[in-house]
């Protein structure tokens, strides 16, 4: 029962993180929040009882975040804001 409650909380946090990734103006911010996404996914795997998958998720999450930040140099970071 407790693990089910924990899973529900983590899944709600995942939904909130996903929405904030989609609706953020700055690409750098989305990449950093994506790192948080993979971290919460890792916690979810641990709660579900799969530490092997959680280990893989932790390492791959770090690598993909660094690669995204490297690739951000080549494109424009910010989308057009509506105020200007």
């Amino acid at each position, binding site marked *: 029962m407790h693990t089910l409650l924990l899973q529900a909380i983590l899944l709600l946090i995942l939904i909130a993180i996903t929405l904030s990734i989609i609706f953020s103006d700055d690409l750098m911010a989305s990449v950093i929040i994506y790192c948080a996404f993979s971290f919460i996914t890792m916690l979810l795997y641990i709660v*579900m009882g799969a530490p*092997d998958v959680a280990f*893989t998720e932790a*390492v*791959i999450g*770090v*690598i993909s975040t*660094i690669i995204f930040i490297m690739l951000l140099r*080549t494109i424009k970071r910010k989308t057009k804001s509506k105020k200007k």
Partner: protein
Amino acid sequence: MKKYLIIPLLIMLIVLPFVFFDVLPSIGDMKSAPNTHVSDYYIENSIKDAYSENMVTAVIVDFRAFDTLLETTVMFLAGISVMIILASRPRAAQRMRSTLDAKKSKIKSIAPVFKTINKDVMITIIEPIILIYALYVLFHGEISLGGGFQAGALIGMVYLLDVLVIPDRHNLYRMSKSNSAMIAGLGTFIYCLCGILTLIGGGIFLEYSNLPLPLTEAMKHSMGILMVEIGVTVGVAGTIITIINSIMERVRFDDDNY
């Protein structure tokens, strides 16, 4: 762009009430289809058949070795396709580049340098510890959690950190793009070689108890699992290094254009 994002969200909200979640088995249900036949057999016989204390390793590398072989191949192909896509040079950009060559603006470094991290700390402390941990994960994966994929990803991460923090290091510590792709293929080759050795010993493909070695059956199983894990490690590390190298070249190329 964001205007059209509402449409899939609306469709999702409309469809959601009509999906019957009762059809899906609940978590940990002992009567659902995957839990009735296969799981029980794995749980009871993983030590007896595969001689591996970690059940996950037994399932991934021993019971389902074909799956893992094809997974490694798919990852190798993904690395090569990333290399090919990033190495292709559009013609318009090439023309623009030839016009820009005359100006020859200041040369930027390949990677963003994190100047707050001390290079000596990086070389002497952080990288060796991560490498030792990768080897521990590789060789201890039969008993504790971990295995080939994680160890390969850790080795790739060491290369990534090295490239980022010390961009102007000697060429001895760098790997060319084609060499790293070759190493990624070598990992898959080691995996297949293990299967061919079992064929020579008279068994079917990847049946570890028929390895042609003068050992007991448990030792044969652990040697086979270790060989396969080493192959997976080399393949994953080579793939990650290939992706990093091709991204580096592309970033440098794009910087020249601006």
